[in-house]
């Protein structure tokens, strides 16, 4: 039943190569996608949901989607474990932040250098991937988190202290409120999601998948493993760098404390919960974890007020226990992530009422 979800519905024929290569194969998919985009970009003008708080959450989710897409390309598609993604976000964030704050570069001009800087650093830490796999490779990316964090702490005084970053501008418009920056963040999110989606259908994407599934077999087929692994690192960290550039211009502030190992763990959790090797899964995972985290942040203080018989701080901390429990349950009940659950739902819808 589940496999039917990976194919177009009955009656949709790919009689040309162009049709076969379409991302959205049916009119319904295209209409829904267009409506979804219109709805997304209309959020800042819809009363009730256009409050700064909600928009900030959506912007934060959009940035996390970009960072996690990169991570999913490396870890989910290419099979190279990275537990230091937040350090590469930091490289992009500080590059873009410094270019804007100290060199006076406009935000738009600082995004690509931020991605490239993160990419260059990412490739350096990706070099061991030629010899290391799995947990051993994870250790080198953990090393990136520690080393880059140390440099930011002791090497550059203002990255430890933090510095103000001017808002993105276009002509006379300053994107200095959530209502305005929303369009910048969502524009990048949609663009980079589309790019990732296409990338994974290309020769490069197929090479990544081949390396993940069996690197020796991939090498036997003529895939230059070292080159493609480094490319995966470069793409992953480029995404992280762009995410970092967006983050500091969203916050209009850059500081080391925003890029911790804990953030890297959250990024990894988002990808795993959403579904390794799935673009939709990345989005689902980010939204799921963001909502869960927000639940803790909002409900925690309320719980603290109501459960006064518990020791101070225990009530708000209790919710982290609940999140941990949900994560464990998720791992046990749906190890293939939310993307798989989504494909089951789609299959059920397509086959109903004959889904036996």
């Amino acid at each position, binding site marked *: 039943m589940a496999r039917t979800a990976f194919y177009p519905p009955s009656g949709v024929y790919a009689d040309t190569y162009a049709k076969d290569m379409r991302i959205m194969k049916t009119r319904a998919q295209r209409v829904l996608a267009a409506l979804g985009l219109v709805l997304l970009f209309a959020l800042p003008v819809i009363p009730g949901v256009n*409050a*700064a*708080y909600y928009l*900030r*959450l959506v912007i*934060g989710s959009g940035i996390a989607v970009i960072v996690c897409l990169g991570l999913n390309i490396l870890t989910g598609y290419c099979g190279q474990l990275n537990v230091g993604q937040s350090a590469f976000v930091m490289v992009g964030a500080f590059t873009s932040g410094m270019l804007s*704050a100290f060199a006076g570069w406009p935000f738009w001009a600082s995004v690509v250098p931020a991605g490239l800087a993160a990419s260059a650093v990412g490739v350096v830490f990706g070099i061991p991937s030629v010899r290391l796999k799995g947990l051993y490779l994870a250790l080198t990316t953990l090393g990136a988190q520690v080393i880059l964090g*140390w440099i930011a*702490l*002791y090497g550059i*005084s*203002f990255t*430890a*202290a*933090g*510095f*103000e970053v001017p808002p993105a501008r276009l002509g006379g418009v300053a994107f200095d409120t*959530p209502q305005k920056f929303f369009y910048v963040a969502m524009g990048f999110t949609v663009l980079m999601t589309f790019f990732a989606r296409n990338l994974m259908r290309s020769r490069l994407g197929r090479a990544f998948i081949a390396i993940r599934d069996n690197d020796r077999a991939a090498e036997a087929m003529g895939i230059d493993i070292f080159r493609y692994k480094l490319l995966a690192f470069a793409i992953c960290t480029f995404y992280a760098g762009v995410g970092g550039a967006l*983050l500091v211009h*969203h*916050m*209009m*502030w850059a*500081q*080391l*404390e*925003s890029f911790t190992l804990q*953030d890297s763990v959250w990024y990894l959790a988002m990808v795993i919960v959403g579904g390794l090797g799935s673009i939709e899964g990345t989005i689902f995972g980010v939204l799921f974890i963001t909502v869960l985290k927000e639940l*803790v*942040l*909002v409900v*925690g*203080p309320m719980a*603290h007020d109501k459960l*006064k018989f518990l*020791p*101070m*701080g225990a009530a*708000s*901390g209790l*919710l*982290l226990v609940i999140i941990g429990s949900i994560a464990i349950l998720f791992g046990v009940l749906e190890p293939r992530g939310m993307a798989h659950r989504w494909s089951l739902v789609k299959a059920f819808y397509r086959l109903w009422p004959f889904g036996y």
Partner: protein
Amino acid sequence: MRNRTSGPFALALAAIALLPAAAAAQAEVVVANISAMTGPTSGTHMMCQSGSRDYLEHLNQQGGIAGKSGKVKVKYVAYDSQYVAAKAKDGFARLLEQKMAIWTQCASGHSDALVTDYETAKVPLVTGSQGIASLYSDWAYGNYHSGIANMIRTWMVWRKAEWEKAGKPGGTLVLGAVTSDEPYVPLALWDIDTFAQQQGVKLVKETFPKGTTDAGPQLLRLKNAGARQIYVIASAPGAVVVLKSAKALSLDIPMTQCAAATLGDVIALGGVELAEGYQGEYFFEPMSKAPGLADSAGMKLARELWAKNHGKEAPNDMYVNGVLSGMVIAEGIRQALESVPPEKINGEAIKRGLDRISGFDAQGLTRPISYVKDDHIGPKQVRYWVVKKGLVTPVSDWMATTTFRIPRK
């Protein structure tokens, strides 16, 4: 029967109908708190938050905060930042939608990230935070703050004065600093070598990684360099590691804890025996002080509030910091009510109220607080204490802190 019951029934109905009107007559000011309620710093942050919340609730129970133009009650709302700057900014947006008029926090590096937000929203901040780099903003008010870089500077001035009193033994004053690699440490040591040079003091610095269980090598190097006293810049777990390492080495160099943790925290975490003789700095009256020492009126109130709200738990000194923030907030609101009617109290009115605070003694919890233009630092006074049998006693009188400012970036 109907006639007999209709009278009281009508009265009750009238009373119910009047209730909302009566409630509406009592204006409400929203005081917000953004703290790490979960995560590694939640212990300290929750203590501060509880202190300000309990104090303001106490005022509510007494009828509210009154000024010439009327009376207001406080609605206290909080947001858990998890010590993440982006979340703190999200929280600020959320609390703004809940009509916050003034906000407070305890200690966090992300405080500086919010400067633009609260300046733009015109919502004043009252903070008991040493973690904040400097109070640059005209909208920020410290209830004991002298800036993170002044902790070690003030200690050096104190140690130099004591050394001079003792006849300058050794010819040159050598002091040591042992620090963890936590993110705020570079701020605490900002341009410290220049200051040491100006003071004619030789300062030797050593760093140990956060999470280590041994700071022995660092302490030994400080000893070999001839350090007469050591300043510890670490949170409570780091301080305990330093103390354990010093004990293992039988090191007899006096050590002083920076304000990133209180002596009470160190005693609670490391135990009475380990903390014996450890010195610490307080910008307010500590709850863990020896019983023989007289309590100020503010301390008596803080102890009452603690017993009433958290009686089963061990008291913590940072609670006093929170009470102090609550007192400054209440005083700012009270001053605002001198000229603005309750229904018009907002961030700008409270800021004007805070600007009028002069010689406010916080019932003796700290030295008098006055805010003047370009100086919202607070009392700028510190006192050093030492642990004796699990309780703290003063080893210095109140003394002026240094007032160095980290340049605004």
